[in-house]
């Protein structure tokens, strides 16, 4: 087996989300879906219901007054916020493990993922633009490829770091050089298998090279910049550190300047801290 084939095999072995999670996420994305059915889907999952209510009653997501049922949460928060919470809960279950190779400790990958999700929203807000609907989900899942590629990176880390010093390329360049594939493409293959929307998959595939994006350029650019900002800010940064290249053209397309970046970081940071606390409480609560 070639290295690439081995990696593809590992992708196959990476457990897909349960059918009910996929169904639920599809229902939440479908504007014509029957709310009763969606509410029921959530109520079948007690852990998820508990998590949703905790969020619905938090300062970060909550509205005034207490929310006691899933149905009430739908009415008060709206479907888009519910999808965000469900996505974070799902990511929390898939991205907790230590990721070797990238030197990510337990929970670090998830930390980085929620940071990028929230920062993507804040970048759109700072730019006063509307981000495409699935931007948050794409941002949360953008690095899922690292969860699979990590053990392969670990085997080659000496070679990768030697070349980083000598050639001076970005970390994802060296993944492709040493392994024939980078974590963005691995992520895209995983999410294609999970039957997530094509534009989301494309954004994940191109999050380090947004110029190659073929479907939703705006979403790809936002996720790219949010990722860069979080790597720079040290949110779940690993051994790959800040060895990535922000795309000049993405920054130009979005009309990003230092003020927008600092404003987004400043608004995102307390929200990230709160979401972390909410999930940490969830662990203690059990």
């Amino acid at each position, binding site marked *: 087996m070639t290295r690439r084939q081995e990696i593809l095999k590992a992708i196959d072995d990476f457990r897909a989300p349960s059918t009910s999670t996929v169904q639920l996420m599809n229902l939440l994305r479908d504007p014509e879906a029957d709310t009763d059915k969606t509410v029921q889907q959530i109520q079948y999952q007690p852990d998820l219901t508990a998590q949703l209510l905790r969020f619905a009653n938090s300062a970060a997501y909550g509205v005034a007054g207490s929310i006691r049922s899933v149905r009430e949460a739908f009415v008060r928060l709206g479907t888009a916020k519910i999808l965000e919470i469900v996505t974070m809960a799902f990511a929390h279950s898939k991205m907790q493990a230590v990721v070797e190779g990238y*030197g990510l400790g337990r929970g670090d990958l998830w930390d980085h993922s929620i940071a990028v999700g929230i920062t993507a929203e804040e970048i759109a807000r700072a730019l006063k633009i509307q981000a495409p609907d699935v931007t948050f989900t794409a941002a949360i899942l953008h690095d899922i490829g690292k969860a699979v590629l990590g053990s392969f990176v670990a085997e080659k880390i000496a070679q990768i*770091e030697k070349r980083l010093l000598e050639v001076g390329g*970005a970390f994802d360049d060296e993944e492709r050089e040493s392994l024939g594939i980078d974590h963005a493409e691995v992520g895209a293959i995983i999410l294609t298998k999970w039957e997530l929307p094509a534009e989301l998959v494309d954004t994940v595939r191109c999050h380090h090279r947004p110029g190659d994006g073929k479907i939703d350029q705006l979403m790809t650019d936002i996720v790219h910049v949010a990722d*860069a*900002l979080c*790597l*720079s*800010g*040290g*949110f*779940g*940064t*690993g*051994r790959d*550190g*800040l*060895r*990535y*290249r*922000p795309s*000049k053209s993405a*920054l130009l397309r979005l009309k*990003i*300047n*230092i*003020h927008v*970046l*600092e*404003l987004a*970081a*400043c*608004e995102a*940071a*307390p929200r990230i*801290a709160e979401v972390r606390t909410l999930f940490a409480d969830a662990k203690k609560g059990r």
Partner: protein
Amino acid sequence: MKRTVGISEMIVSTNLDDVLITYSLGSCIGVTVYDPEAMVGGLIHCMLPLSKIDTEKARKMPCMFVDTGMPALLQEMFKKGAERRRLITKVAGGSELMDEKKIFKIGERNYAVLRKLLWKNNILIDAEHVGGQISRTMSLELATGRTTIKSKGREWEL
């Protein structure tokens, strides 16, 4: 006791058993200050250079910004008996992405604002490890005043 300083936080301590530590300094700036005579030390982890971007946030979380966080740290140090002339000040962080266009210059700005602020306060930087494209962990041992940096599995004294 190991005490973690989160992003936009600081700790000042006089407990000689304490080790103050902050993780994942990228473009953020970490500063340790230590007075070997008063045996008081502090560590701060600032994310952004200037508080004018959101003055409301700066009031609630002064340590988010260098220009409000550093004065808060110094004030707390003085309150606990430290004296300016005895302060040992060390700096880490201020990394950058591989950004030829220099749009993501948060690290550089953090460091520049810090230098200016310390200079105005007549405080010298005794040691520093800043810039580059790495993420750093910084810690301060209260009993000895030792500041250490850890990055990519390597650890050394600053």
